[in-house]
């Protein structure tokens, strides 16, 4: 970063399985307008727009940034469209933030979305290419064997995933934007839900959602001005990083991927973090299947390898009682508009350090981690945000 950059406006939609009351543009404009309102700005104040989403086939629009340009106030401005698989929401925020941190623009609007109900997303993902292996496992079937490998390596008991599933759904009850609102969620309910991909129960998997997320990124002058105008604090970006590794290769550690460890090391170095568990007040981490919480606890260095499940089991990651609450918003397990899911992690981390998370606000949160991953755990994007200027 050549100069300071901060999140000065945040907006998201109420995530649902079907937003059948809006067009795609209308859905994005809800999130974008909320972010502009939060920053005390209008579209005219924005210098550039960066959008992100997962495969175009989900909505059946090729390179939809063109159709969406006027909806997002991008006419006459630079506009970019990022696609890095599931990590895209995070990488999109990073691309937008680079434009500000590297001195190109003063204020950039970034929006990520998915309107999965326009198609059947799981179907769109599983279009068999000719000559490819026959369809065997479906979406979760890719990750379930990796989870089993984690269980074997770490010796974790079978119920850790179910505990994460309950915890994140309880968290979601404090977040009015979260898709899944299951007031009576319990271990018993998770255990009795269908075993989709053994060892994964139905309630240990993420939902399919329609939704959008938006942020306004501003430079120091823009951030100071927004704070003076609105009385709301910005979230200062202390570090951001992306890492990729090949999808499959001999000896690849899919349980604890090197790209994730390297990405964390990079972003921690930028932000001066040496002990993530102690120095972060909370984290928003991409956990689409319950067991990815203990796996990412290890990958992100919140504990030693093999100890992630112990941290989860101890309640350390629970909002209100744990010392390092994860996914206070309810996380991907509660809302999953795929292309926006990564940006929601980044956005929720920023909300926390701005003190604006409402009922799921972690008391006096000053530093938070946002993480997104995609593909077969080979694409990573992370940022560290704080209440104070870096």
């Amino acid at each position, binding site marked *: 970063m050549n100069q300071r950059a901060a999140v000065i406006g945040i907006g998201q939609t109420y995530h649902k399985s079907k937003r*059948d009351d809006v067009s795609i543009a209308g859905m994005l404009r809800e999130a974008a307008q909320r972010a502009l309102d939060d920053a005390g700005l209008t579209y005219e104040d924005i210098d550039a727009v960066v959008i992100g989403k997962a495969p175009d086939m989900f909505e*059946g629009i090729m390179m939809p940034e063109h159709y969406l340009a006027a909806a997002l106030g991008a006419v006459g401005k630079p506009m970019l469209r990022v696609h890095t698989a599931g990590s895209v929401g995070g990488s999109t925020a990073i691309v937008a933030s680079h434009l500000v941190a590297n001195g190109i623009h003063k204020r950039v609007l970034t929006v990520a979305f998915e309107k999965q109900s326009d198609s*059947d997303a*799981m*179907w769109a993902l*599983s279009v*068999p*290419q*000719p*000559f*490819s*292996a*026959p*369809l*065997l*496992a*479906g*979406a*979760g*079937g890719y990750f*379930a*064997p*990796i*989870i*089993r*490998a984690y269980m*074997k*390596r770490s010796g974790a008991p079978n119920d850790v995933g179910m505990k994460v599933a309950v915890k994140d759904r309880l968290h979601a009850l404090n977040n009015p934007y979260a898709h899944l609102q299951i007031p009576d969620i319990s271990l018993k309910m998770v255990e009795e839900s*269908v*075993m*989709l*991909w*053994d*060892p*994964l129960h139905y309630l240990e998997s993420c939902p399919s959602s329609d939704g959008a997320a938006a942020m306004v990124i501003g430079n120091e002058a823009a951030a100071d001005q927004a704070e003076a105008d609105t009385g709301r604090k910005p979230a200062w970006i202390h570090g951001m990083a992306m890492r990729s590794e*090949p*999808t*499959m*290769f*001999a*000896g690849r*550690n*899919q*349980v604890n991927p090197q790209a994730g460890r390297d990405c964390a090391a990079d972003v921690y170095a930028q932000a001066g973090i040496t002990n993530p568990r102690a120095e972060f007040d909370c984290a928003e981490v991409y956990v689409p299947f319950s067991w990815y919480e203990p796996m990412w606890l290890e990958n992100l260095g919140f504990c030693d390898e093999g100890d992630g499940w112990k941290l989860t089991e101890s309640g350390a990651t629970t909002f209100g009682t744990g010392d390092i609450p994860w996914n206070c918003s309810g996380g991907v397990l509660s809302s999953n508009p795929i292309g926006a899911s990564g940006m929601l992690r980044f956005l929720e981390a920023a909300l926390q350090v701005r003190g604006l998370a409402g009922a799921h606000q972690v008391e006096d949160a000053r530093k938070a981690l946002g993480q997104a991953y995609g593909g077969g755990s080979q694409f990573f994007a992370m940022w560290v945000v704080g209440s104070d200027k870096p």
Partner: protein
Amino acid sequence: MSEAREPVTMLSTPIHLDYHFVAGDSQSKTLQGYLEGKFIGQRCEVCGKVYVPSRGSCPTDGAPAREVVELPNTGTMTTYCVVNVPFAGQNVEIPYICGQILLDGSNISFMGLIQEIPASEVRMGMRVEAVWVPEEELTPSLASVRYFRPTGEPDADYDSYKEYL
């Protein structure tokens, strides 16, 4: 207009696209192998690791992997899951086992169907072998392998496959 009708709120836009898919030289080697009832991989000219299916390059070295290697029918199932969810395009009755198969002499696992064993007896490290469809049903696809089944050999030592999970 004859009578007031409900407003239109949804638009159906079917999209049908035709493509002509081409496998490319390297992938075609493996596909040709399936057609002949055998596994074909390729060895990286830098690190020497064997990839199956073949794809012409080594993902870690970015180097060509052209040397053709015929692999045996046997391997180790490194990890697995039990699929109990119906989804579009599925061609096996649920529940069933999906295993990661590491063929002997190769350095990458791929997903395969496991049969001839109850789900409760499946375990990581199990030794398996491919059961091919009858010769007249062979196609240039992994579908030529009907499934993998246990060989009855002792399970592989965890250390022998722990890097291929």
